[in-house]
């Protein structure tokens, strides 16, 4: 399977990815996907500059990411997808990406968001996106590090933010 992991992390490529996740998986290709980031030349330059020695980095729009991952070229790689928000994950799924699991990494506080833990704050629209993915049978997890358990995180979201999760 070409896409080995899909992670929503506001910080995109940072220490946890470069050190912990990169050593746990044989990542060959990190695809950063978010339409705003892909349209910002400064962020694209910087993301490519921090690529680990062993993996290449692409910064693609959601649409281009799905197209690439469904292309024959992707079959030969171990791809690690990094997006910013749960809404990005839903857009990937609705665009036609086959993903059995979606992992939540750092989700910092943004206006209107509510706290689930020190590292995870979700907005109503984010929770709704997670719900849709959960209903499609995608397992939602929340692992900062590869060593964290990959237990089902949806019940935690439902319990903590019941008004938004119903």
């Amino acid at each position, binding site marked *: 399977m070409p896409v080995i992991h899909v992670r929503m992390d*506001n*910080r*995109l*490529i*940072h*220490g946890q990815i*470069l050190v912990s996740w990169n050593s746990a998986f044989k990542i060959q290709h990190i695809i950063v996907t978010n339409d705003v980031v892909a349209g910002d030349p*400064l*962020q694209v*330059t*910087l993301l490519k*500059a*921090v690529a*680990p020695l062993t993996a290449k980095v692409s910064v693609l729009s959601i649409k281009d990411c799905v197209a690439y991952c469904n292309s024959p070229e992707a079959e030969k790689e171990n791809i690690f997808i990094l997006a910013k928000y749960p809404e990005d994950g839903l857009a990937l799924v609705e665009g036609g990406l086959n993903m059995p699991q979606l992992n939540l990494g*750092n989700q*910092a*506080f*943004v206006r209107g968001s509510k706290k689930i833990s*020190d*590292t995870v*704050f979700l907005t109503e629209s984010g929770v709704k996106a997670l719900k849709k993915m959960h209903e499609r049978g995608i397992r939602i997890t929340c692992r900062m590090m590869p060593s964290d358990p990959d237990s089902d995180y949806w019940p935690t979201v439902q319990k903590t933010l019941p008004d938004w999760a119903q």
Partner: protein
Amino acid sequence: MVGIVLVSHGSMAEGMMDAARMIVGSMESVVSVSLKESDAAEDLMARIETALLEVDQGDGVLILVDAFGASPFNASARVAMQRKNVEVITGMNLPMLLELAVQREGQDLGAVTQTALQAGTTSIRTLSQTLKGNSAAG
């Protein structure tokens, strides 16, 4: 004088300043910024901007970060790339900061950056390497 901003995960930057003060006393135009677990990249960038304004005397600012590619670096780089006269150096260590504390007066940003690079890299050595060097010289 070139301003110095230290940016790190957790309290490393603050601890670095604390350690440096034990050796050289209080330092002019040096401030620290910490990344907390719940921070958004934009929060950290805003705090770095504030720190730059605090230490910039018009001669530019050198930002010392803990690790290349990690969030403190990423946020510092995004701020620096949008400004003139701001450089970022990674792998901050105590000898680097100490050298900057005593050797910044009258130097421009390019020279200060070279000082930091040199002090930071040449200070990393092992005991056995050092002893061997000494016996060869003696």
